[in-house]
């Protein structure tokens, strides 16, 4: 139950945007930052309208690459989500397997993704698939950790009720453990949503990739001294993909676990 906002959402968002812009331009003026350190906001905005080498405007170039990255992220997100779920259910069923496998699952996340990405690209090729796999690599872990916790965190009396009703273990899983852990799953999916985008972009960095925001970022970084605004624009677009993913999960979450009192407001 939230108190009805007095100021409309759009107006509040706009106010925050204006404040950020003011701080940005204020800092630039105050510390006399040159554009290669911090470009003007309008320079970034105008970069989208500039024509690229092929004669297309950057808005269109960014949109195409963003779409490509988003698709890779989405496939990776789905792949990682399912993998994470399968691992969580396996761990919840068997302490023995959890004890055996968890160290490797944790180790997988301590290795920098930047070190692994080139190897995955070498193994699986430079197509979208290798990028999706790298995205999945970052996605599955939060799902595994949170979901296995959720599957275990069932109220003992809720379990006693199932036992009293002589429910089968299948029924206990599908009618109690799984629905009860959905809020945990969605908390993980929020984290995974942004992580999958990062995974896809990192997967696009190695030599040989031709599409995606990772490629745009690498190129923009090479020409940073000439046109710094281009890299900032690429960062902005990448961030937007992440935000869209996060919001999409939040929307689905509201629909699926609207019954839960622990669902965050956003």
């Amino acid at each position, binding site marked *: 139950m939230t108190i009805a906002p007095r100021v409309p959402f759009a107006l509040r968002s706009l106010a925050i945007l204006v404040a950020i812009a003011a701080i940005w331009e204020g800092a630039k003026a105050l510390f006399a930052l040159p554009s290669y350190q911090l470009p003007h906001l309008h320079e970034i905005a105008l970069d989208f309208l500039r024509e690229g080498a092929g004669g297309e405007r950057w808005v269109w170039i960014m949109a195409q690459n963003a779409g490509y990255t988003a698709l890779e992220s989405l496939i990776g997100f789905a792949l990682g989500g399912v993998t994470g779920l399968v691992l969580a259910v396996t761990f919840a069923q068997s302490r023995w397997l959890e004890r055996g496998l968890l160290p490797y699952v944790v180790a997988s996340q301590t290795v920098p993704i930047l070190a692994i990405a080139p190897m995955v690209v070498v193994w699986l090729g430079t197509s979208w698939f290798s990028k999706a796999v790298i995205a999945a690599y970052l996605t599955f872990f939060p799902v595994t950790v949170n979901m296995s916790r959720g599957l275990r965190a069932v109220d003992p009396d809720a379990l006693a009720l199932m036992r009293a009703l002589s429910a089968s273990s299948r029924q206990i899983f599908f009618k109690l453990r799984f*629905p*009860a852990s959905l809020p945990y799953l969605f908390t993980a999916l929020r984290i995974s949503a942004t992580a999958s985008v990062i995974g896809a972009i990192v997967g696009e960095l190695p030599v040989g990739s031709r599409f995606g925001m990772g490629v745009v970022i690498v190129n923009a970084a090479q020409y940073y001294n000439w046109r710094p605004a281009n890299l900032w624009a690429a960062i902005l677009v990448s961030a937007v993909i992440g935000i869209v993913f996060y919001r999409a999960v939040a929307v689905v979450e509201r629909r699926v676990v609207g019954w839960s009192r622990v669902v965050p407001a956003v």
Partner: protein
Amino acid sequence: MGAPIIELADIAKTFESRAGATEALRAVSLTVQAGEFVSIIGPSGCGKSSLLRIVGDLVEPTSGVARVSGKSARQARLDRDYGIVFQTPVLYEWRTVLDNVQLPLELAGRARGEREQRSHALLRLVGLDEFAGHHPWQLSGGMQQRVSIARALALNPSILLMDEPFGALDEMTRERLNQELLQVCAETAATVLFVTHSIAEAVFLSTRIVVMSPRPGRIERVVTVDLPRPRVDETRALPRFFELVTEVRQSLREDPGVAADLRPGGAGSP
């Protein structure tokens, strides 16, 4: 009174943990006849909840035998012979009120049409049919507990196990639900085993009250409640009501070291 429906013979329960062993129950024997309303009352930690859960085969006794409906407690559970109500309503929050009441019918594989018809009837019985489509958190604590009672009755069990079902409610709600519970019991003819720590509640509801000693829980005394039926609000004003309340209160205060059987009207007398 009918045939024995719950028979506990020499039940003992010791919980083992890293901190050591805790003896919760010692040598508890009790027979409940069909149609009875038996309350178990005692100080916190006296094992009264454990005793109820042993009857429901949710906890295994360390020794002794529990027989329910003439079978082992385990078989009675597998046959879904009893309905259970916990101290908290234990409603699944992703299910609507109706779907919560339906749960036992669903697990038992009943057809959808029958499930819904029966669940609506049960909600009418506890006066909550208009809330069928609500989610549990939209209901007050007392209403939630009524839903949980409706759910316990879903498979028309011959036994109701109730573990301090009204313990978390305020006095007024509790008294109203006591009244409603007796009406429900009269309609369903269920035998009730009822754990409580409210003396007045136990006297108002029961045919017999089992008074337990502090840990390790033993049966201190069994008080037969000879108040007229049906029990109504005026029952609470009868002199006999106060006498019984006093009797139970005194039993609770008595030295737990004294063997219950040595006192007149002690354990063993129906």
